[in-house]
């Protein structure tokens, strides 16, 4: 099972966009739902679109989706917690994805992960206190020849070494 500590997260008051501007959020959610023809079977795509817009899945947005698609909140929640890409807590400005697929693993991704944990002072799946970086691991990005690979905000950085890592990070402020 996905070991995501979702229980405690979802009960947190939603921050920033969520708390301040429920109306704005509703408009966005409506637009996304409309894009998907209010189709229940598109739930995963809908949640992906919401996460892309808000950077995470705010509790209020999940409630809206459940209500508007006429599905139970618990079913929405179960999908949101089953799949690894979804985050129920706000994520940082920059999202670092470290590939820990087999090829990257044998080429030293564990050391990259350790170094990032130490440097950013966070565990994987967590966000730095200043909300600047979220550190995540991913199963395999399919660019095994370039391992170890990390992706920061969608930009690929391959053949990483510990010293190259410093340079990469300095590009993201």
């Amino acid at each position, binding site marked *: 099972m996905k070991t995501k500590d979702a229980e405690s997260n979802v009960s947190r008051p939603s921050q920033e966009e969520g708390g301040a501007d429920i109306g704005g959020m509703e408009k966005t959610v409506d637009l996304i739902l409309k894009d998907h023809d209010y189709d229940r079977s598109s739930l995963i795509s809908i949640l992906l679109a919401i996460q892309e817009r808000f950077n995470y899945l705010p509790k209020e947005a999940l409630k809206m989706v459940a209500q508007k698609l006429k599905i139970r909140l618990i079913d929405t929640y179960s*999908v949101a917690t089953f799949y690894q890409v979804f985050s129920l807590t706000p994520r940082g400005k920059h999202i670092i994805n470290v590939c820990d697929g087999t090829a990257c693993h044998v080429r030293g991704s564990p050391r990259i992960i350790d170094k990032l944990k130490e440097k950013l002072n966070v565990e994987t799946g967590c966000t730095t206190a200043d909300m600047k970086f979220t550190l995540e691991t991913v199963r395999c990005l399919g660019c095994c020849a370039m391992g170890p690979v990390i992706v920061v905000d969608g930009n690929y950085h391959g053949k990483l070494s510990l010293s190259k890592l410093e340079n990469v990070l300095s590009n993201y402020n």
Partner: protein
Amino acid sequence: MNRLQSASDLEKLRKQILSKRDPKKPCIVICSGTGCIASGCEKVSVAFQEELEKQKLMDKVDIRTGGCPGFCERGPIVVVQPEGIFYQLVEAKDVAEIITETVLKKKVIDRLLFTDPQTGKKIVLEKEVPFYKKQKRILMDSNSLIDPAKIEDYLAIGGYSALAKALFEMKPEEVIDSIKRSGLRGRGGAGFPTGTKWEICHKAKGDLKYVICNADEGDPGAFANRGLLEGNPHSILEGMLIGAYAIGSSEGFVYVRHEYPLAVKNVKIAIDQMRELGLLGKGILGSKFNFDIKVVQGAGAFICGEETALMASIEGKKGEPRQRPPFPADRGVWGKPTNINNVETWANVPLIVNNGAEWFANIGTAKSKGTKIFSLVGKINNTGLVEVPLGMPLKEMIYDIGGGIPKGKKLKSVQCGGPSGGCIPADSISVPIDYEALKELGAMMGSGGMIVMDEDTCMVDTAKYFSKFLLDESCGKCMTCREGLERLLEITTDITEGKGKMEDLQTLAELGSLVKEASMCGLGQTAPNPVLTTLRYFRPEYEAHIKGSCPAKVCKALISYHIDPERCTACGLCMKNCPADAITGKKGMVHIIDQGKCIKCDTCYDVCPEKFDAVRKISGEPAPRAVPQGTPIKKREAKQ
């Protein structure tokens, strides 16, 4: 472009496209797959664009951002056509020279050529590169002939002619028969005969049937499907159309994993173009065949590669597998008959329809026909995508195509078939690669990941890594998988930490076979394979761990680091880079590791320059006593 109303419309359009093309016109092909993107091909593409504009050559030279040709190790890769001159590791600064020298003056730039590591010779032409020479690229070859975002390019190489042939010259049953005779088997792992699968779904009762392309290539270390999806999405979609026609389906899904953004993008572009041309929708090519395709994205769940979990995910639910039977061919998505095939299986279909079942059946072995794309990764010189006829000895793939193991190290094992595949030992690599032979060795074809491991890879650690992966990805439905994997992981972890007992090995074997037998879906049934095969072939390595040493010097709890006072030059690199401040030393003095502070991160071993080679890894014995602080370094002879 207008909607095509008939097969002759399609041919007319093809002729029109070809008439505008001059095969002699220079064309710069830049690989734009994810592998090359990771090594910076986008900058190279922009540089070519700018340079051609600057030199006012826009109408004299074409640029094509093509799909992945497979040789990711050497990316960014640029091929200058029509000569086929192969440049590797190209950077933006090389671009102007490539245009003025190679494109205009037809001169080859020596430094950008690939050097054959075995002969030391420079190689000019793409087809002469040893990596490609022994391959049989019936699927991958098209990747560099087309821009995946341009349907015209696919049409120019004969695209959708197989569809027209199937629709207007063959009955659905004839298509199925042809696929059956070709001997094509599922490329997603299990190797079920594709034609038989189609026949069952064709005969299933129901007015609405679905076809699915399983593009949830979740196996870490496998990216063959990614290469096809990004590089030639139309070939897959054409295969789906033909399959749908044969089965009698009107709706299809491509289920792509979220981790492949470029694949999602290219497939969506392809679908839009098909719709515009009338290759999707109602009355395709003026026939009575209606079909449409929807792209569904995964969201990071490995289990969704399993067909019943994938179908649950398409329905918008969490991806939990369910019991089979009923098989998808009887009851699939929303309870309707559904045929699901892997990306590579679909991509083979147009080739079989066009070239005939016999042509396909001539490639491969008695039971495993055609080619298979493997991703050759790990500790191998030429990493990348490799397409070979089935039946090729594994050894040839590793040494002749892969160029052997880097740094002269020894091959230890090839892990094959994804996380739940198996580890094939080095002494079995003369085995031919086919479905049966791999299964016999305890591995499987899987999605074609071949992860090469050298003597520096610890097999117990590998078993632990895969068990951890599969435990995380187990959906938790079956107790044997959920709890059994947890225990397997616990025991292997204990062993890597030096806390193992000899009787643990017996427990691993018993527990492993129990999980295999009592789990419901493919994940649980194969999940103990990494443990079981490493135990079968590398038992002495397990035993060594239990006795306190890690022969590959990987497992942190069983190793220590030591600086050889005879070799230390006091360069200070290790001290500067040590994250735990465990190294002390001064100019001219031998550096010393404080064993109490050392976190065994491997940094000192890594940064110590090869020519000094002073940091030693030790396992199975205590680190030698450090020399006293302030011991001067040994004066080395000038020549060294």
